């Protein structure tokens, strides 16, 4: 029965992807893409990667879908120019690529290095029990540092593009004209979202969870507040800017301060590795949440008045 489930899931993924690409109407493609994100979360579950399922659910359903829907709302017409006419040659190359890939997946040498065993061996010294968090925050923490820099650069460029705009008045609904049901629902749901984000962050050290998933959930909560016309960004414009860089600042500070103690870069002191990781993850969650929210909030074309 597992085989039936997997094959259906795989074919469902292909059907969703086909739907995204062959739909003439862009809106339908975006909705198909949201469905694709959900099926992908199920796929990660079947590949024994609950962390990725969590991340795909939080970022795929929570954020990318919202960003795309927001972009669709901004575009006036959905009709697009007909695709390029010469399609035979690209079709053949893509089919060839797919076949080559599948063939190569099959014939591969026996791996001489088994990283999972190495991870299992040095897991006790990493300070956390969950192997993925250990890899992310300790063994390959330099990757994570650069990745947070990537997120920060995206936010900086978004701010640069927005500052360039004369601070156009953001015509959005005032306090009074909020949708009552949505406002009520959001005001009750927001604390739950915050609680769950902290829970996911805390769970990261011993079971699937962690900074990114927690940050994405936090961002989705902030986006929900913004959509329900709770204008949170008005309150602390400058604090928002500090919040963006705070996670990266703390991570870099910790990474370099250990060097003063004579240890190599990004080496947590043995006894406190767990506490260091949790502290960094907490600040990272806060910063990732703010960065992802500001990426949603800074996107141009907000001036379109709501016609509720």
């Amino acid at each position, binding site marked *: 029965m597992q085989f039936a*489930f997997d094959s259906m899931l795989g074919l469902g993924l292909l059907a969703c992807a086909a739907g995204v690409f062959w739909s003439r109407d862009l809106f339908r493609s975006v909705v198909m893409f949201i469905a694709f994100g959900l099926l992908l979360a*199920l796929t990660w579950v079947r590949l024994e990667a609950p962390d990725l399922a969590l991340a795909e659910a939080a970022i795929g359903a929570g954020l990318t879908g919202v960003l795309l829907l927001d972009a669709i709302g901004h575009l006036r017409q959905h009709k697009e120019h007909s695709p390029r006419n010469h399609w035979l040659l690209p079709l053949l190359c893509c089919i060839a690529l797919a076949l080559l890939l599948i063939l190569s997946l099959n014939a591969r040498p026996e791996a001489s290095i088994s990283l999972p065993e190495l991870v299992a061996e040095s897991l006790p010294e990493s300070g956390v029990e969950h192997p993925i968090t250990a890899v992310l925050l300790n063994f390959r923490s330099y990757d994570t540092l650069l990745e947070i820099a990537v997120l920060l650069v995206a936010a900086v460029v978004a701010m640069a593009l927005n500052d360039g705009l004369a601070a156009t008045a953001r015509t959005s609904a005032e306090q009074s004209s909020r949708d009552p049901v949505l406002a009520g629902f959001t005001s009750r749901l927001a604390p739950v979202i915050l609680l769950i984000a902290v829970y996911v962050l805390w769970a990261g050290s011993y079971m699937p969870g962690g900074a990114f998933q927690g940050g994405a959930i936090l961002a989705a909560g902030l986006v929900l507040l913004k959509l329900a016309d709770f204008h949170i960004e008005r309150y602390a414009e400058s604090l928002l800017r500090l919040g963006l860089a705070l996670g990266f600042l703390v991570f870099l500070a910790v990474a370099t301060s250990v060097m003063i103690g004579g240890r190599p870069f990004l080496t947590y002191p043995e006894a406190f590795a767990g506490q260091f990781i949790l502290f960094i993850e907490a600040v990272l969650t806060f910063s990732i949440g703010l960065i992802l929210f500001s990426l949603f909030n800074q996107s141009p074309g907000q001036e379109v008045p709501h016609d509720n």
Partner: protein
Amino acid sequence: MTAFWWTVAALLLVTLLAGLIRIWRGPNPADRMLAAQLFGTTGVAILLVLAQAMQTPALNDVALVLALLAVVAMVAFVRRARPETEEPE
């Protein structure tokens, strides 16, 4: 017992994939978003069943997160996406 959970999961997946038809055919955007909403709920159900079938309690957290965030896409559609042109298929 686990075979039972797998059949339930497979059944729910069939209903989920059936929802794709509505996304494809759905005359107006609201129908498509309805299907997406149903996807979210069915996804939560499948995750809960898989948590039992695969004995990984972590999946309950995934279900929890998905339950939370499925509504964000719907709210984004209502508040921001206003696709004027609805082409009959």
